């Protein structure tokens, strides 16, 4: 488990073969059953065009009644080893419009799969549009975070 300034990396060994893990990313019916932070947040796959250049769109139904929509494009698909796709949350959301890329790597290992998910933050294309009010609060938070590090 790594969280550095630019992204997140998750590594896990799964007992399933790379082909089966890969299929879990490629099939909308399977994606719905796991690509969510918890079983308490149901996922509806609105679109999943699993090919290079194809688009996907996921709708997360948060218990408080809101729906979070995430979408992107598949940039690279190399079955059954590697998948790269963009990931952007749609408004309204505090992180709406932040560009990012997910890289999934599947490596055969001991009959199962070493899975690596790298999710890289790229920031906003409209960074200058963010209003500065409240930055003092953010600054205090920053100082605290840095002092903890």
């Amino acid at each position, binding site marked *: 488990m790594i969280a550095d300034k*630019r992204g*997140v990396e998750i590594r896990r060994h799964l007992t399933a073969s790379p082909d089966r893990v890969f299929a*879990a990313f490629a099939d909308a019916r399977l994606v719905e059953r796991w690509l969510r932070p918890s079983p308490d947040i149901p996922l509806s796959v609105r679109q999943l065009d699993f090919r290079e250049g194809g688009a996907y769109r996921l709708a997360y139904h948060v218990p408080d009644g809101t729906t979070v929509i995430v979408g992107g494009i598949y940039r690279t698909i190399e079955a059954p080893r590697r998948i790269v796709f963009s990931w952007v949350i749609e408004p309204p959301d*505090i*992180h709406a419009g932040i560009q990012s890329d997910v890289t999934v790597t599947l490596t055969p290992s001991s009959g199962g799969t070493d899975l690596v998910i790298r999710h890289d933050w790229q920031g906003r294309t409209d960074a200058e549009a963010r209003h500065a009010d409240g930055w003092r609060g*953010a*600054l205090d938070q920053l100082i605290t*975070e840095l002092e903890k590090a």
Partner: protein
Amino acid sequence: MIHALAGGKARTAGALGRQFRSAQPTISRHLKVLEHAGLVERRIEGRTHWFRLRQQPLTEAAGWIARHHAFWTGAVDQLDRLLSDKAERDRR
């Protein structure tokens, strides 16, 4: 260095050097590291380089990272469970 820039105003490397009583190359090196880490932004006016903290983008990234770290950790748990359960059922 972070605290010196925490006032919110842009400062030059020279002014920071005087405050820290450090040699210019040392200050420049520190500022470059902070800039590379996304903590500090540089504005060039003629021959003067102004440095300022980038607070908002960093804390927003930190929030985004925490959220997505929790997301993927939870998702991979469920992926593991889904594939294990399926394999179990397929074996019966």
